[in-house]
C-alpha cells in the first residue's frame, strides 16, 4: 500500500553533475576530507586472496560506488570497512585501512565500536522478527543511547523516508511490510544509532524499480549528513547517485583462482564518459558484463 507520489518514470542514465564546481582537471583528485584511506588492501578467506590491490580514499559527505562484474570482491571489500569480515573464520585483511587516519585493524581497535560508527545495509532486507518500533529501537537500546526512545524512533523513520507510511502501525510486525519498505526500515534502523558512514551492499538488487527509486532519492538526501559507500552491479544506479566510482575486475591467476582488483577510481562522471582504462570502458559501455 505504498503511496506513489510521483508518476512512474522510466529512469535512464542521466548526466551526472559533479557535486562541487570548479574541478581541476587532474586525473585523480583527492577529496578534501577523506573518511577512509585504503592502501594496497588485500582480503583472503583462505590461502588465496579474494580481492587485492585496493588503494583509494573515500570522501566525506559523498557517495562512493563500487562497481564491477560479480565475483570481483566488491562485497568482500565493503565488509572490510566495518570489520564484518571478522565474523568469517579464516578471513584475513592485509594492507592498511585507515578510518579518520586511524588504523581500523589496529590491535587496540574494538570491532564493536567500529560498527557503532559505520553502519551497513544488506542486499536482502533483514528486519528483525519484531515490531517496526522495536526494530528501530534495538540499536539505541543495546548501545545505551539516552533520550526518549519514541523521539529517536520517530526521527530515524523520518530520516529514512518511512515515517508517514508506518506512523500508525509502529507496533505491528516488520515482516508485514513490503520489500521496499523493509529495506527503508533497515536504513532507518541504521540511522537510529547515528552513524558516521553508511555502507550499502547492493541495497536495491532485491527490490522493484519504484522502491529502488525511493531509496536512491533517500541516498541523495542522506549524503548531506552521512558518507555513503555503495556496492552495486547496476551501472546506471552508480551513474545516477554517486560522486566517485571504483571499478573492480576479476583476474584469473595461473591456478585458475579468481581474485578481484581495483582497476580505476575516479569521479563518476569521468569513469562513465571518459574512462582511463580499456577494461573500465569495456564494462561501462556494456561490451562485457
Amino acid at each position: 500500500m505504498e503511496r506513489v507520489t510521483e508518476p512512474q518514470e522510466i529512469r535512464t542514465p542521466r548526466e551526472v553533475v559533479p557535486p562541487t564546481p570548479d574541478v581541476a582537471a587532474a586525473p585523480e583528485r583527492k577529496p578534501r576530507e577523506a573518511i577512509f584511506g585504503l592502501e594496497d588492501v588485500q582480503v583472503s578467506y583462505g590461502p588465496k586472496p579474494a580481492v587485492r590491490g585496493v588503494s583509494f580514499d573515500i570522501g566525506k559527505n559523498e557517495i562512493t560506488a563500487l562497481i564491477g562484474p560479480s565475483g570481483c570482491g566488491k562485497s568482500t571489500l565493503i565488509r572490510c570497512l566495518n570489520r564484518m569480515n571478522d565474523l568469517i573464520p579464516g578471513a584475513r585483511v592485509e594492507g592498511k585501512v585507515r578510518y579518520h587516519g586511524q588504523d581500523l585493524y589496529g590491535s587496540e581497535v574494538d570491532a564493536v565500536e567500529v560498527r557503532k560508527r559505520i553502519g551497513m545495509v544488506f542486499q536482502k532486507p533483514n528486519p528483525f522478527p519484531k515490531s517496526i518500533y522495536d526494530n528501530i529501537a534495538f540499536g539505541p537500546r543495546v548501545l545505551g543511547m539516552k533520550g526518549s526512545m519514541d523521539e529517536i524512533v520517530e526521527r530515524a523513520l523520518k530520516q529514512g523516508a518511512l515515517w508517514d507510511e508506518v506512523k500508525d502501525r509502529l507496533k505491528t510486525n516488520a515482516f508485514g511490510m513490503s520489500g521496499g519498505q523493509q529495506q527503508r526500515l533497515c536504513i532507518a534502523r541504521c540511522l537510529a544509532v547515528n552513524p558516521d558512514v553508511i555502507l550499502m551492499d547492493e541495497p536495491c538488487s532485491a527490490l522493484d524499480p519504484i522502491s529502488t527509486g525511493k531509496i536512491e532519492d533517500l541516498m541523495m538526501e542522506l549524503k548531506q549528513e552521512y558518507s555513503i559507500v555503495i556496492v552495486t552491479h547496476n551501472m546506471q544506479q552508480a551513474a545516477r547517485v554517486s560522486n566517485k566510482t571504483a571499478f573492480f575486475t576479476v583476474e584469473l591467476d595461473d591456478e585458475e583462482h579468481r581474485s578481484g582488483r581495483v582497476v580505476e577510481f575516479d569521479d563518476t562522471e569521468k569513469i562513465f564518459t571518459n574512462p582511463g582504462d580499456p577494461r573500465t570502458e569495456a564494462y561501462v559501455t556494456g561490451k562485457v558484463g
Partner: protein
Amino acid sequence: MEAATTTAGTRAAPTLGAARRRWGESLIKALLILAALISVLTTTGIVIALLRETIDFFSEVGVWEFLSGGKWTPLFEPGSFGVRPLVVGTFLVTGIALLVAAPLGLGAAIYLSEYAKPRVRKTIKPILELLAGVPTIVFGYFALTFFTPNVLQDLLHLKVDLFNALAAGIIMGFMILPTIASVAEDAMSAVPQSLREGAYGLGASKLQVSVRVVFPAALSGIVAAVVLGVSRAVGETMIVLLAAGAVANNSLNPSEPHQSLAAFIGATAGGDTPTGSIEYKTIFAVGMLLFVITLIMNLISIRFVRKYRQVYE
C-alpha cells in the same frame, strides 16, 4: 542537525578502543563452556564410576571366570560369577525383538517413504511417535499381564511360563520398532528422486523400485537404524525385568524365564545395597559390560549414519 540527546554512535571519530575490555563477554563465554563441560563430565563420571568398581570386582573374581563362566548366582554364599547367562538372556530377548522389529519396522518405513500419500504420512507418523513415547514400564505391564496370559497362552496355546523371554522379546520388538522405522525412513527419503525416476523410466514397478533401487541405496542408513534398535533393546531394563522374570538362565528356550544384564542391575540395585559389598560391585561390573556393548553398537551406528549422510547431503 546534531542530535543533542544521543551520546553513543557519535559521528565524529574518537578512539575506537572499547571502553572496558569487554570482560563481560569473556565471562559469559566461560560460563557457557562450563555448561558444555557438564556433558563431558557425565561421560567421565560414568566411565570412572564403572571402572573403579569393576577393577575392584576383578580383584575378587577372575576376569576369565566372569566372562566365560556359565553360572550366575552372585548373591549366594559362595556365589558363582559367570556372566554368560545374563548375556544369553540379553541377546535371546534382543534377537526375538529384532525378528519382530526389523521386518515390521522396515516394512513400515518402506510404506511411509515410497507408498504413502502425504496425508496418510501425516496421520501415521504421530501414531508411531505415540508408540515411541509409551514408557517401558507400561510395555512391561502389558507383556506380563496381557500378552503372556491372553495372547501366548490362551490365543496361541503356547506352553510358556508366566515369566518368559518370548513375551518380553516380542513386546520389546514393538518398543524399538518406531526407532528402526523412523531412522530407516529418513535414510530412504534421502535417496534422490532421480534414482527412482531412472528406474521407473525403464519400466520398473513400485515394488521393484522400492526393493531393488531405494533399499540398497539407503542400505547404510537402514543398517544404522537396525543397529540403533538393537542397542536400545540391549540396554532396556523394565520390559525384561517385569515379563521375563529374575532367573539367570543359560538355555535358549524362550518359553522359560531369563534375565538380561540390565534387568539384573534393576533387580539387584535397590538403594540399600551396602557400598563395597560384592553385591554392589557386581552391579558395576555388569553395568560396565552393558555400557561397553551399547557403546560399540552406538559407534557402529554413527559410522553408518555418517556414511549415508555423506553420500547424499
